[in-house]
């Protein structure tokens, strides 16, 4: 019982929130690119927050289910179908044994997430099930999924309470541009006043150099004071590094742990999904906020996800009406 990969798509990998605790030894964190879509997918199925999912990229895979389960699909819109019929996203979906789940190419966004109520049987390596492709570590044999691969489920779980309520509003990823809020630093003092003004007041373009490691932008030259080389230091998720060519590179899930270029700013965690769902030629602008504001946004999103969790645990309107009618009918017959 599990899933068989009929087509791997462009880049389909097993991911969770990443392998933390080992960066001091040179291990990249890896993990999902769009943390928000990932969390919503698991939330729709009452999965643990960090349960492993499939991350799909630009061209989606085709999967065959060898047992019944429940899934949720979030992130960019890859036009998912089950046995040829379109199915809704951001909704819990029953899947039967033998069903074929097929994705096309991304109409909006660039990454999608599939969560499973039966949990993927992927060994935990150093505290995580995520795939670190550079080190061939974790996930499914340390690599992307290909036709013929088979992943078992860990448990049987084909029932969820309040099933009809398990629908959420779609995140729309159809915009061609995004404004990313950033916290300046740690090395903004390496850049001239003019360089910082350029960074905050210009439009940048997403280039085709955009993968799980980072996103290279094209646009106006960001001037440093005296070169942007620094003694190598640690890199965070969303660090905006500016090498001597003066164009920003935003470092993402598969980033190396350390690097020797000055980092002018760091993208606020809640805005990283807006970046990773963009495509080549989309436009990016930056706006500076304080670290306190960025942390408030982070906590607001935690509250928002909690509210979603409560919402899908209430009986939906249609069911409530039926119950009410049944109750009235019962009193008629009982009297």
């Amino acid at each position, binding site marked *: 019982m599990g899933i068989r990969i009929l087509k791997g798509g462009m880049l389909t990998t097993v991911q969770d929130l990443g392998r*933390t*605790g*080992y*960066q*001091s*030894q*040179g*291990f990249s*964190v890896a993990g999902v690119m769009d943390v928000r879509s990932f969390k919503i997918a698991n939330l729709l199925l009452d999965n643990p927050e960090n349960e492993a999912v499939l991350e799909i990229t630009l061209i989606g895979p085709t999967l065959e289910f060898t047992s019944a389960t429940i899934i949720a699909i979030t992130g960019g819109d890859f036009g998912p179908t089950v046995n040829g019929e379109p199915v809704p996203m951001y909704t819990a979906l029953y899947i039967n044994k033998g069903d074929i789940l097929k994705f096309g190419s991304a109409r909006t966004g660039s990454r999608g997430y599939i969560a499973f109520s039966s949990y993927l049987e992927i060994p935990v*390596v*150093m505290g995580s099930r995520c795939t670190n492709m550079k*080190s061939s*570590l974790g996930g499914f044999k340390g690599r992307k999924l290909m036709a013929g691969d088979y992943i078992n489920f860990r448990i049987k779980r084909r029932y969820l309470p309040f099933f009809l309520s398990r629908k959420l509003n779609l995140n729309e990823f159809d915009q061609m541009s995004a404004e990313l809020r950033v*916290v*300046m*630093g*740690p*090395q903004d003092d390496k850049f001239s006043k003019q360089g910082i003004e350029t960074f905050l007041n210009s439009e940048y373009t997403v280039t085709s150099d955009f993968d799980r490691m980072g996103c290279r932008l094209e646009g106006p030259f960001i001037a440093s004071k005296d070169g942007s080389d620094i*003694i*190598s*230091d*640690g*890199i*965070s*998720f*969303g*660090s905006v590094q500016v090498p001597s060519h003066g164009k920003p590179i935003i470092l993402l899930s598969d980033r*190396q*742990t*350390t690097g020797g270029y000055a*980092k002018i700013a*760091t*993208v*606020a*965690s809640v805005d990283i999904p807006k970046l990773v769902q963009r495509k080549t030629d989309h436009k990016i602008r930056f706006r500076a906020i304080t*670290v*306190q504001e*960025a*942390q408030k*946004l*982070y*906590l607001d999103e*935690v509250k928002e996800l909690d509210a979603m969790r409560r919402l899908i645990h209430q009986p939906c309107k249609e069911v409530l009406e039926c119950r009410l009618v049944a109750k009235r009918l019962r009193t008629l017959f009982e009297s």
Partner: protein
Amino acid sequence: MQNIRILTAGDSSLLVEFGAEISPEINRKIAATVQLLKEQHIEGIVDMIPTYCSLLINYDPRVLSYEEIRERVFAIVRVETIAGTQRKRVFEIPVCYGGEYGPDMDNIAKHAGLTEEEVIRIHSSKDYLIYMLGFLPGFTYLGGLDERIHTPRLANPRLKISAGSVGIGGSQTGIYPLDSPGGWQLMGMTPVKTYDPNREVPILVEAGDYIRFVPIDEAEYLRIKDLAERGEYQCTVHEGGV
């Protein structure tokens, strides 16, 4: 401790900058700070990346606010005595130098104007401080290579360097933890697995530890390699104060 700066690195990380130069003293302070932070088990710290002269701390803003983590870290780096109390660990890494194990040994010896034996003696006669790990899992940035055997990188990098290769790249020396492309001049191989994802401790060493290369012959190399493959080889580790 007046040189220490705490810098923001987004909403979930903090960068503690201990100075702007590569020196064993600064590096020792960083290793001691990491040790103290680990001992305090501060809830909310997710990961730490110590480097040459700074420490990046990843934390969870749900547990710790920026002000809280900043205050906790300041309280630790303010302590002046941390550098004196640190232990020193030296890992012995056996190396089979030259021949098919070190295809560039000739280059290194010629460049230095020394014999192969002298190169081996110089390379294995000191303890190298691990300033940091990075680039690849378990790749160590070692300080203190003797200037006489500094050797420029290969003009044409190799597409594949086997795990366990020991080499020199400019003023640096180190061990390749896994198969990787690279341009270093290869002088030997260690049978020890410095990185093994299936071991309970995948990486043996930490930043702040030292490495001592110990020359071995081919018979010993094969003997240790056999033990290492079965997971039965333990590196010799010397522990003591600095």
